[in-house]
């Protein structure tokens, strides 16, 4: 049923999107920027839903708005903590900003940063040029692709066209997407952002009550998301976001850190399992049929489910570790004004 007002709603949503995007980029107060960004994610999710792309709407709301928002807030909390520390003690301030490279200070330091910016800019520019040169010669889509997907749907092993594209027809893209999550984790470890804090949050009565209420629901719902992904909107990323949300709430509520629940090797295996299984299956199909990531129609359904389950576990754990840091302990102190024991001595 077409109502006269829907055009106005879409117009308002579009304007709100631009407004929130501008606010998240241009405002000087980081906290408000983060709030605008979270709001932007929700509005974008609504827009996707109105465009009929429910899969993307779910992913945007859960990962783009929810998990990314939580990551931003965790980073803000950490920054506030560092500033707090620096404010209390000038020596700590010096330590905060120079501890990584004590040999460079002042002008030399600035010069190094400038050089690095130049190199980074050059790399970004060449990457952009590469993308532009590869995309530009591509023929414009002639509208035949949706029909092609529907035509080949029986061979994909799933009934949801989006899942068929993501995990069969264009599985290469999704493999790389899962790789990106893994790469983000490795990158953060490599630059040492995820240093172990060794601190835990205090147990929270109200929040742990909510955690106990919500965790089983999230687990069941995540399992449903993976399972339903083959027929209807859903899939690994959405399910992983639900699990990660549970893990993040648990960390804030003072639940046992991941490092206590899982040995480091177990964590590493679980974090890389999704990408590893996906890649191995791709290579296997290459050996069998001579084509990378070309699943035989008979086996495709099972393989896709296997990949989705492994990817869910890996992405969920990656997102939780990105939020909490190495150890699964909380990256910032919750108790106001309490100086952690290891810092009071200095």
């Amino acid at each position, binding site marked *: 049923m077409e109502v006269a007002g829907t055009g106005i709603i879409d117009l308002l949503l579009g304007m709100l999107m631009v407004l929130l995007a501008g606010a998240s980029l241009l405002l000087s107060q980081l906290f408000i920027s983060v709030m605008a960004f979270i709001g932007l994610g929700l509005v974008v999710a609504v827009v996707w839903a109105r465009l009929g792309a429910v899969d993307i709407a779910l992913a945007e709301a859960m990962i783009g708005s929810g998990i990314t928002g939580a990551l931003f807030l965790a980073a803000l909390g950490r920054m506030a903590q560092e500033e707090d520390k620096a404010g209390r003690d000038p020596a700590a301030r010096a330590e905060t900003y120079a501890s990584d490279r004590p040999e460079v200070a002042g002008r030399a330091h600035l010069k190094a940063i400038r050089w690095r910016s130049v190199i980074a800019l050059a790399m970004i520019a060449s990457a952009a040029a590469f993308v532009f040169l590869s995309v530009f010669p591509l023929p414009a889509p002639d509208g035949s692709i949706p029909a092609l997907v529907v035509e080949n749907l029986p061979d994909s092993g799933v009934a949801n066209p989006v899942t068929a594209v993501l995990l069969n027809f264009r599985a290469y893209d999704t493999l790389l997407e899962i790789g990106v999550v893994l790469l983000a984790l490795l990158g953060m470890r490599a630059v040492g952002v995820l240093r172990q804090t060794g601190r835990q949050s205090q147990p*929270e009565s*109200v929040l742990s*009550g*909510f955690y106990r*209420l*919500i965790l089983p629901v999230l687990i069941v719902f995540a399992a449903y998301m993976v399972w339903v992904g083959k027929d209807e909107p859903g899939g690994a990323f959405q399910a992983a976001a639900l699990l990660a949300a549970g893990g993040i709430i648990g960390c804030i509520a003072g639940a046992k850190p991941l490092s206590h629940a899982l040995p480091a090797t177990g964590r590493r295996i679980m974090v890389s399992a999704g990408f590893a299984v996906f890649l191995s299956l791709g290579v296997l199909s290459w050996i069998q049929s001579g084509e990378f990531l070309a699943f035989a129609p008979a086996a495709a359904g099972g393989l896709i489910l296997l990949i989705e389950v492994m990817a869910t576990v890996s992405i969920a754990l990656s997102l939780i570790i990105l939020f909490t840091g190495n150890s699964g302990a909380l990256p910032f102190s919750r*108790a*106001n*004004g309490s100086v952690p024991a290891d810092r009071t001595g200095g």
Partner: protein
Amino acid sequence: MIDWISTVLLLFAVFFFVGGTVGLLRFPDVYCRLHALTKADNIGLGFVVLALLIQATSWVWALKLLIVWVFVMAAGATNAYLIARAAIRKDIAPWKSPEQA
């Protein structure tokens, strides 16, 4: 007939959402704003759910709507508590009316 009842319920919802928004913008401190927001959201969403509930074509649909409402209320209450506690830990004193102060 059912459409009319839904419309009336949605108008009630709009009333509460507008009230909550006005409270968010106009109330003097974080605790009052939280009160306005959470209360109005819970009841406003409740009326939206009621309006959609009587339009539901199957009981699964209706159940899903109710579950959405319950979880939003639980999450909203928890968030309100966390924000209020963070404010207290930051020593933000609750607003008092001029006569009290």
